[in-house]
């Protein structure tokens, strides 16, 4: 396992071309499952998950002026925190323990 922290960032640009110019230059980068940008308030936004050193290099790239980089969280730290929210043992070990969904039945 790589010890370097992975930082979750949002990359925002006015156009898809600006966004692509930036991600082309810093690539290969982890842009989630399928590198799908979403449109928010007239801007194109995509999430990235970059090691700290790659993020530093990305800030200094030629295309960095065409995008805004917003740090969301330290995804590595958050992941370690979330591992405490995983079930231990087996809540359904007994055949009589029937899972119930979150929908209200009415």
């Amino acid at each position, binding site marked *: *396992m790589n010890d370097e922290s992975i930082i979750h960032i949002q990359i925002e640009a006015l156009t898809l071309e600006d966004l692509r110019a930036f991600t082309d230059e810093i690539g*290969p980068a982890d842009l989630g499952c*399928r590198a*799908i940008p*979403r449109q928010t308030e007239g801007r194109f936004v995509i999430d990235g998950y970059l090691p700290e050193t790659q993020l530093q290099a990305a800030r200094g790239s030629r295309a960095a002026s065409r995008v805004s980089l917003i740090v969301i969280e330290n995804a590595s730290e958050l992941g370690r925190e979330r591992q405490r929210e995983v079930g231990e043992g087996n809540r359904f070990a007994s055949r009589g323990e029937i899972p119930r969904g979150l929908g*209200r039945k009415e």
Partner: protein
Amino acid sequence: MMTYLNVLEIESALENLAAAYPESAESIACPNVTHEGRQTHVLRVGARRAAVYGVLILGGVHAREWAPPDALVSLAADLLEAHELGAGLVYGGKRFSANEVRQIVDSSNLFIYPCVNPDGRHYSQTNDALWRKNRRPHPGNKNCVGVDINRNFDFLWDHLKKFAPDSGVSASEDPCDRQVYRGPSPTSEPEAKNVVWLLDTYPQIRWHVDVHSAVPVILHSWGSDQNQMTESTQTFLNSAFDSVRGRSNDAAYGEYITQIDRNIVETLSYRMSEAVKAVRGDGYGIEQAYGLYPTSGASDDYAFSRHFIDPSKTKVYGFTIECGHSFQPAWTEAEEVIREVSAGLIAFCLEASAIVARSTSSSVRQ
């Protein structure tokens, strides 16, 4: 406090649901065990064993995306319990009637496969939370572990040959690539083999939804290039376009889709998005699966491509939901995401049922 399901709990939950609702559920063992020796199961939800149409719903293909497997277990439990009670289902502001629940369970087969990649999920939940791939070491280099299951399917798998060199296609031939290593050969991985086995074994499957996270967005075909509806020779089958496939905004190539197919995938996507929004107001946009870059070897494109390669195979429309805003939201937020996914998938199944009914009545008229 409730917590995320671990991989053992997912399997036990499916077994217990099948045992509790024997008239409307069946546990199906997938034949290919994972590298770490886990056998996975699919829950077939449906009162009729050979219903007129089936929906294959996948979760947990990418290990670090923790909410989708929990969402699919919750969805199965909801449908089975509500069906038995003769009740409807409510998710936040979205309500489904008892008749709608009955329509799904009595007339379709949902093949719910909550955790395609249990080795990866276990590793993500206990070691490296951001792990995405499976856990099989590369045969030639034991230090390189894991294949991205969603780049391993046999759809334009050889991205170096099948896409323009400057397309930026999202896949890698490097076994040490942490994210998108495609594997040593198409469908090399047991997890991908199990999905193919389901599509081969149950020809009633006409719809395929792969639940991932996070953007959020709903994706429909194709992921290989931007869609076009005029040049029928420009398809993934035509190797004459290998050197130009995948570039954005060019005139040289676009992936061909018929108007009818495009209408179907857009309508279904819209129904899902509408239902998701009604839960708590969050907007899941609708996009073609070609985003900034093309993708090779993905499950949704593979499912849709099968009929064009071999017309004797059922045409399966492929979709991906990227749910929620984070790979591992706090559990309280994950519960909201689970409600959104559940509502979106139930709305999807109802629209699929309506499409089947319309096509059946039209063929009866002919």
